[in-house]
C-alpha cells in the first residue's frame, strides 16, 4: 500500500516571488503559506540570526537552566561551572525526547533524559548511556558506538547587557555588530544595571509571527490605534521623537521625547483621529501615569527590536522584554517578562506595578495589539497574491526624525528578504 505523507500539505502559494521590486509592497502569502513558514525556520531562526533565549538573571548559578524556543526548535540555556552560558537543542540524541521538560530550574552537574536515562553535561555533550554495556555482557550498545558523534545540536551563545542570545550559525556576526551601534546604544541606555524580574505572562495571538513584529516596528499606528497613548500624551506623532533603523534593517528603536508639541498641538483634532479623546476621557486616579525621569534623557517611550523576535520596551517606568515565538503559520506566543532594577526603591517598585497596567494582554496601551494582527490575518484570508502598502515616509529604510513613517517596517522586510533569499 502506498502511504502518502504529503496529504493535506498545500502547494506553496509562491516560491518567494515578490510582486513588485519594492520594500513598500509585501504580499499577503508571507503570513499564510505553510512552505514559507518551514523555510523561515531554516533560513531565519536556524540561520545567522541572534535569538533571545533568556535573561542572565534567570540563571545566576551553576546548573541553573531555562528552556525556550529558537523558532520552533526547543532549546536549553544553562549556566556552566565556569560561569559561561551554554545553549543546545532540547532533544535527546537517543530517541528525541525533550531533555528538560520544565521552564527552568537547577540540574546540578548534568541533564538526564527521563526516557532511557541518557545524560548530558552542562555543555550539551552526551556523557552517559544507561546499561551501555548491557547486563552480564549481554545487550548494550555496540563497542564502537561513539558518544561524541551523538550530541544535540549546539548553539553559540552571547550575552549583552543581561540578555542571552543564541545562534545556530557560525557566521552570525558579533551581537553588537548585528544590532548596529545606534540601536545598541538605545538598548544599553535601558539595560544599564542588574535587573530583577517582576512577572511573566504569555499572550497567544491568532496571527503569523511577522504581523506582531511589524506592529512593534510600526511607529505610524501607535498613537492612532492606541487612544490611551494619544489622550495622555504618552506618545503622539506631533511630539518630538523618531525612529532609528540599523543598516541591515533588522533592528530598530523608536522613541518619544517628553517635550511640548508647540505648533502641532492641534494636528490630531484637525485629522479627526479617533484616538484623540482629549477632554472626553479623564482618569479618576491618574497615579497610573505617575512617572519619574529615570534615564536622564527625556525619552519617555522607547520601543526597540532585534531581528527576528526580540523586543525591549520602556514606557515611562514600565519596562519589559517581549519574545515572539512562532506557533504555526497563523499563531504565535508573545512572552512578556516585566522587570525592574535590583536597586529599585519601594516607591519605584510601586510605580512600576501601577504602570504595568499600560502593557501586556490587559494593557491600557497594548491591548489593541493583541487583536490587530488577527484582524489582518482574517482580512487577508482570500488575498494571498494581493499586497500591503507600506509607503509612509517613502520606500527606504533609513532612520528618520519622525514617526509618521513606516521606515522600520520596511527595514524588517529588507532583512527578511535578505535572509530568505527573496
Amino acid at each position: 500500500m502506498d502511504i502518502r505523507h504529503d496529504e493535506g500539505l498545500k502547494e506553496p502559494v509562491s516560491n518567494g516571488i515578490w510582486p513588485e521590486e519594492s520594500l513598500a509592497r509585501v504580499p499577503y502569502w508571507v503570513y499564510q503559506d505553510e512552505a514559507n513558514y518551514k523555510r523561515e525556520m531554516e533560513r531565519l531562526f536556524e540561520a545567522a540570526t541572534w535569538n533571545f533565549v533568556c535573561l542572565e538573571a534567570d540563571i545566576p548559578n551553576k546548573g541553573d537552566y531555562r528552556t525556550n524556543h529558537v523558532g520552533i526548535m526547543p532549546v536549553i540555556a544553562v549556566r556552566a561551572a565556569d560561569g559561561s552560558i551554554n545553549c543546545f537543542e532540547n532533544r535527546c540524541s537517543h530517541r528525541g525526547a525533550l531533555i528538560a521538560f520544565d521552564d527552568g530550574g537547577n540540574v546540578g552537574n548534568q541533564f538526564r533524559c527521563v526516557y532511557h536515562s541518557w545524560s548530558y553535561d552542562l555543555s550539551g555533550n552526551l556523557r552517559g548511556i544507561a546499561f551501555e554495556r548491557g547486563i552480564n555482557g549481554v545487550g548494550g550498545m555496540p563497542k564502537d558506538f561513539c558518544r561524541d558523534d551523538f550530541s544535540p545540536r549546539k548553539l553559540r551563545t552571547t550575552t549583552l547587557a543581561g540578555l542571552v542570545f543564541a545562534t545556530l550559525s557560525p557566521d552570525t556576526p558579533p551581537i553588537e555588530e548585528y544590532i548596529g551601534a545606534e540601536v545598541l546604544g538605545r538598548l544599553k541606555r535601558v539595560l544599564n544595571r542588574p535587573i530583577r524580574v517582576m512577572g511573566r505572562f504569555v499572550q497567544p495571538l491568532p496571527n503569523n509571527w511577522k504581523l506582531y513584529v511589524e506592529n512593534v516596528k510600526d511607529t505610524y499606528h501607535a498613537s492612532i490605534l492606541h487612544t490611551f497613548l494619544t489622550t495622555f500624551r504618552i506618545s503622539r506623532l506631533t511630539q518630538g521623537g523618531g525612529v532609528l533603523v540599523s543598516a541591515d534593517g533588522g533592528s530598530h528603536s523608536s522613541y518619544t521625547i517628553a517635550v511640548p508639541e508647540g505648533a502641532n498641538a492641534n494636528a490630531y483634532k484637525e485629522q479627526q483621529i479617533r484616538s484623540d479623546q482629549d477632554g472626553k476621557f479623564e482618569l479618576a486616579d491618574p497615579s497610573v501615569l505617575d512617572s519619574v525621569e529615570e534615564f536622564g534623557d527625556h525619552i519617555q517611550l522607547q520601543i526597540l527590536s532585534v531581528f527576528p523576535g526580540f523586543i525591549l520596551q520602556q514606557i515611562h517606568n514600565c519596562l519589559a522584554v517581549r519574545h515572539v515565538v512562532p506557533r504555526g503559520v497563523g499563531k504565535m506566543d508573545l512572552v512578556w517578562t516585566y522587570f525592574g532594577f535590583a536597586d529599585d526603591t519601594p516607591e519605584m517598585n510601586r510605580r512600576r506595578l501601577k504602570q504595568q497596567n499600560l502593557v501586556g494582554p490587559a494593557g491600557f496601551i497594548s491591548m489593541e495589539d493583541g487583536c490587530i494582527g488577527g484582524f489582518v490575518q482574517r482580512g487577508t484570508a482570500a488575498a494571498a497574491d494581493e499586497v500591503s502598502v507600506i509607503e509612509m515616509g517613502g520606500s527606504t529604510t533609513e532612520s528618520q526624525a519622525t514617526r509618521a513613517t513606516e521606515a522600520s517596517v520596511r527595514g524588517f522586510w529588507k532583512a527578511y528578504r535578505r535572509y530568505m533569499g527573496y
Partner: protein
Amino acid sequence: MDIARLVELNAAYARVIDTEQFEEWPKLFHDPCLYKLTTAENVERGLEGGLIYADTRGMLEDRVSSLRKVNIYERQRYRHIVGLPVVLGQQNGTAEVETPFLIVRIMREGDMDVFATGCYRDKVKPDASGALRFSERIVICDGRRFDTLVAIPF
C-alpha cells in the same frame, strides 16, 4: 463570617461583569483596595507584577471607562462560574476568603471557550452600611496564557 453572605457577594460580583454592568464593579470594593490579576506561577515565585493592578477604587473605575470608551477589541462577554468560598481566617472583622472560578469567554462570532480558571484570594469586610465589600481581591489564574487580550476584568 456567614458563608451565605460571601456567596451572595460573589454572585453579585459575577453578575455585574457577566451582564456588562461594569460601572457597578468598583462599588464592590472598599477604597483604598487592592485588585490584582496574576498567575499561580508568579505568586509562587514571589513576583509581584500583575496584568491588572489597582490600589484605589478610582483605578478600578478607570479600567471600566477605558474598556467602555478607549480600548478597541472585538465584542465579547464572560460567563463566570464561581465555586463555594472557603474562609481561611478572620481578624478584626476582615475575613480571608478563597473561592475558585471558571470564566468562559463568548466571542462575537459565537465561540464559547474556557478563558481562565483559578481562585480569588480575598480580604472581605463590611462597609459603613454593613454590606460586605472587598478590601483585597487577588485573581490567581491557574495558567499563564491569556489568549489575544484581556479587556474585561476577571
